[in-house]
């Protein structure tokens, strides 16, 4: 119970830091502006204007959510060390794992809040343009939230042992490859080379399969959704994030704060 209180205190402070950070508002403004530009882009087409509008909107939410996850996530621990605020925190009766989990949850909550704001703008723009909004859109945005939670965990893992620049590079790479592993595996399966088959299979099983969190197609075409379309990615995402957090904690435990 005390452990939970400490984690909540850290998470609350992380959320408060983000809420008071003007840079994040600027990024949020750009995201909202990009969702709005979907209206302009859709006017360039004579067909499927609503679909273009909503694809651009969901894409903007995903890209900005992930960009925020990477750029705030990599600095999450580094900032505390760089500013030496970690000295006073870790001298209190809080374990390093509680601190890390609290920071993680605080950032994920911050990003969900921002995704929520972007989602509201998306809904408003869709209503304004007369585009239909359904359960598929809610599910798509929900899974963007899960994807962002996985990306934050990746950023936290890399930032626990490397510099922010390297961590940003590694996390960005994992995100890009994470969206390609399904395709790579499918193509690798048809390869003549045993090595290619094995590498693409290994990549698919090791790196996060981020396509599992993409329901944009379901949303824009209003395809029917099964409960497993939500629960399976949800379980997979949080399971994967938990493993990454465990790895980050193990690395974090070994660090000296000079």
């Amino acid at each position, binding site marked *: 119970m005390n452990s939970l*209180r400490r984690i909540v205190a850290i998470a609350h402070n992380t959320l408060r830091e983000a809420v008071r950070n003007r840079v994040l508002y600027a990024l949020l403004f750009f995201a909202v502006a990009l969702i709005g530009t979907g209206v302009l882009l859709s006017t360039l087409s004579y067909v499927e204007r609503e679909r273009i509008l909503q694809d651009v909107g969901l894409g903007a939410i995903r890209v900005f959510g992930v960009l925020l996850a990477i750029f705030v996530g990599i600095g999450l621990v580094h900032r505390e060390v760089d500013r030496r*605020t970690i000295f006073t925190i870790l001298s*209190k009766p809080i374990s390093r794992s509680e601190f890390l989990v609290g920071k993680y949850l605080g950032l994920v909550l911050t990003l969900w809040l921002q995704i929520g704001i972007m989602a509201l703008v998306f809904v408003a723009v869709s209503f304004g343009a007369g585009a239909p909004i359904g359960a598929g859109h809610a599910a798509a945005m929900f899974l963007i939230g899960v994807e962002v939670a996985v990306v934050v965990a990746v950023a936290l893992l890399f930032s626990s042992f490397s510099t922010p620049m390297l961590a940003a590079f590694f996390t960005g790479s994992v995100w890009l490859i994470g969206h390609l592993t399904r395709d790579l595996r499918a193509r690798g399966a048809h390869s003549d080379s045993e090595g290619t088959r094995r590498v693409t299979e290994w990549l698919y099983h090791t790196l996060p399969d981020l396509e599992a969190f993409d329901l944009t197609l379901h949303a824009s075409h209003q395809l029917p959704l099964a409960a497993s379309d939500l629960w399976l990615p949800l379980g997979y995402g949080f399971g994967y994030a938990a493993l990454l957090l465990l790895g980050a904690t193990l690395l974090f435990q070994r660090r000296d704060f000079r």
Partner: protein
Amino acid sequence: MADRPDVVIRVEGLVKDFRPGFFRTRRVLHGVSFEVRRGEVFGFVGPNGAGKTTTLKTLMGLIRPTAGTAQVLGRDVRETEFRRHVGFLPEAPYFYDYLTGAEFLRFYARVCGVAGRAREGRIDTLLAAVGLAHARDARLRTYSKGMLQRVGIAQALVHDPQVVFLDEPMSGLDPVGRKEIRDLILKLQEEGKTVFMSTHILSDVEMLCDRVAIIANGRIRYEGSPHPLLDEGEEADLVMTGIAAELGEELASRYGSRLRGIGERVELRLPQKDVADVLRRALAEGAELVSVTPHRASLESIFLDAIEEKAE
């Protein structure tokens, strides 16, 4: 070493190696050992780079020792729960500048598990004690360096700890602020708390500390009362005129370069214990006294002497 109930901090054979490169190792603590007893103000003294902060951070669990043991309140410093009874102010602290003074203390109180009802009262009491009641609702980014130091001390005390670790607590403070912190440390001692204070300011050691440990190059050079140290270091500057030639030669052979003659005037730096004898004899032989000025050697000079003594 047998456990003694009055020992609250025990460090034995502490060794710390850092790895500045992949294949290089640098040893910064070479078997540091000392004890701090309950209720005392303990000064941990040494020049910059001596290993003070590394030792302190090891005691706070921020740095993992390579070898040796460190215990606070009978618990290994790698544990977490004992820190419920420990407060820490790091050197030149930097805090969450987006928080107000009250929010800052509330956050640390929550991390330390201070219950909601007691929390607000404790925050107000502490802010008043460190002279920051007026800045309760101001963001820390608007605080001066001295105010940050004081709110830092308040966060170290927010959970009413038994042992308080202060790393250079007077740094960045003006004379009034320094006095306030000195009074606060003495008040903590009156309340029965143990204070471990890392410093390189000799006057603070003299005024506050019951015992000290001197560290240099990662090794403890001295542990005990600060007063013999100060006595050894105390000297006086004696200025006289009309000193007899025979006495002048004798003093020159005794004190060497510490005797300087400018015309009729002779300046001599000598241990305070020698002042009365030299003065009595010089006056008896017709010399005239211009001035006697007590001179206190800096910690660095005492310290360098201590290192040289060890080397010899």
